[in-house]
């Protein structure tokens, strides 16, 4: 099945998700890469498979009080609270900046209500340069950050159906791991018209300062990310791949090429890198180079030949 190639050959890295052609399967996870420009001094944005923006809402959003982050064992908790410039300012200023790059831009968004989801999607629908929308139904950090839509399959189905009607762009739905059976929400999103699924968003967590006896985050509860959550994410991606026909984007604790490969082998068509961007702004470039090297060493001519090749 895997065709051996000579070592010096350049393996094919391009993948396709919901009709979007990506140079390689590596893209940032929403909320860890700003609007792209923050990382432009450190990383060639044209080298990425895609750029995924910070989550946008209809109106600008203030976010939570501080402290908003804290480090935990091999991970971090965050409760930023979806601070963002709002969809209109994004289109006017941030998208104008991103248009200079050839990399597809995937715009992450959320709403407080179904109608808000629909309205944000509609405003982005005719914006040139937006390759796809990623609908966040999984933020754990705000009361109406979409998690209600992510944990109740009926609400998920209704919200995704409504957004589906308001956009002609490819629609990716981002799922939460904080559910009993992720296959149910995954199927609900697929049945409602999602073109792809991305997972996982952060796991809810909490940390306490034992001296002050206060929570380490002002929001008390936050989302756990980083290497600590990777095995959980790999398991959930494996389960979702079994349950749906649409392509899946794997997310969770990826900081090296080997981590990305685990997700591809269980069946993810692409992956998102999150917390690792904070640790090393050049992390995604290192991962892309590592994937190419792995393919050369293992004699894999095309990265697609690795996807979904889990041996059971």
């Amino acid at each position, binding site marked *: 099945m895997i065709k051996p190639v000579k070592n010096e050959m350049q393996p094919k890295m391009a993948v396709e998700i919901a009709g979007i052609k990506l140079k390689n399967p590596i893209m940032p996870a929403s909320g860890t890469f*700003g609007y792209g420009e*923050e990382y432009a*001094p*450190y990383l060639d944005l044209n080298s990425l498979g895609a750029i995924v923006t910070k989550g946008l809402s209809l109106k600008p959003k203030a976010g939570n009080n*501080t402290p908003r982050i804290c*480090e935990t*064992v091999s991970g971090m908790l965050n409760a*930023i609270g979806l601070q963002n410039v709002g969809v209109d300012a994004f289109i006017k200023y941030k998208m104008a900046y991103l248009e200079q790059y050839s990399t597809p831009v995937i715009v992450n968004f959320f709403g407080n209500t179904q109608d808000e989801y629909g309205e944000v999607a509609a405003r982005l629908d005719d914006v040139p340069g937006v390759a796809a929308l990623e609908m966040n139904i999984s933020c754990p950090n705000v009361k109406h950050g979409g998690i209600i839509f992510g944990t109740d399959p009926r609400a998920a189905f209704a919200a995704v159906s409504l957004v589906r009607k308001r956009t002609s762009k490819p629609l990716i739905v981002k799922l939460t791991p904080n559910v009993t059976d992720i296959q149910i929400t995954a199927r609900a999103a697929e049945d409602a018209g999602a073109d792809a699924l991305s997972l996982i968003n952060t796991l809810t967590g909490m940390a306490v300062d034992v001296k002050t006896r206060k929570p380490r985050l002002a929001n008390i509860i936050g989302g756990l990310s980083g290497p600590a959550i990777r095995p959980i994410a790999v398991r959930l991606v494996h389960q979702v791949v079994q349950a749906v026909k649409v392509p899946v984007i794997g997310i969770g604790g990826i900081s090296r090429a080997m981590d990305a490969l685990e997700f591809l082998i269980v069946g993810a068509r692409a992956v998102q890198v999150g917390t690792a961007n*904070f640790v090393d702004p050049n992390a995604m470039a290192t991962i892309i180079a590592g994937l190419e090297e792995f393919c050369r060493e293992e004699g894999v001519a095309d990265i697609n030949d690795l996807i979904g090749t889990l041996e059971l």
Partner: protein
Amino acid sequence: MKNLKTIVLSNQEISPGYFRMKILAPGYNNTAKPGQFVMFRVQRSLPPLLRRPFGIFRAGFMPADCDSMQPKEFIELIYKVVGSGTEIMQRLHQGDPVELLGPLGEGFDLGVAEEEKILVGGGIGLVPLYMLAERMVETSRVRLLMGGRTRDDIIMVTEFERLGVETYVSTEDGSLGEGGMITQVLKRKLDKFPKSTVFACGPMPMIDAVQKICFERGTPLQVSLEALMACGVGACLGCVVKGAGHTEVEPRYLCTCTSGPVFNAENLDWNKIEVTVVGSGGCK
């Protein structure tokens, strides 16, 4: 600006719990501005996962070993051992690999030449004031007011004196210099030299007290803030502080990493200030 994989040149304890680390840093001598910081990675393995921000104490260079070689540029960090990251940091030796991202952030505005300057440093908050003093002594009269809980928290005063800075020390327990808070000294100095500009860095209660004193007198004030940061480049939004005019409806959050760490006091919302104090490596 890029991530620099480099090595430690030296690492010494200068006062109980306080260390001074010299790091090889090509390119920093001409680019690092007073008040800027680096995101420091203490080792490639975990823990810690995230880098930590440290204010740059000083940038400089060592003469070349022989004619054909380039001078070796370095930066110095001064840090207090407060947690797992700084625990690892204190055990590093010459030649150990570390990573620097920087120089980052908006530094101090040097202000008008010839006018009197007062620096207020609380404990490890003294760190970013040194480079500032280095630049300002060329054109201005500079006074340093250094405060700490005990004498162990009073560091680097001699280095400031060598620059020609007049220094005044106070400790809360009276073990060195005047007993009490450094803010008492600030009030006296401002009574005597009311035309001064103030530059402050230290624990948040001190910064807050300094702000009140300066605000009442209309004294220009720049503060260097410290905050928990994941990225240092404006992406994670973990380090935000409320800017002047902030409301829930029209939020005006400023990233400490990119809009700061040095702020003009008038640009911040002092009613709701809630920056998290970490206390490891100078203001940033």
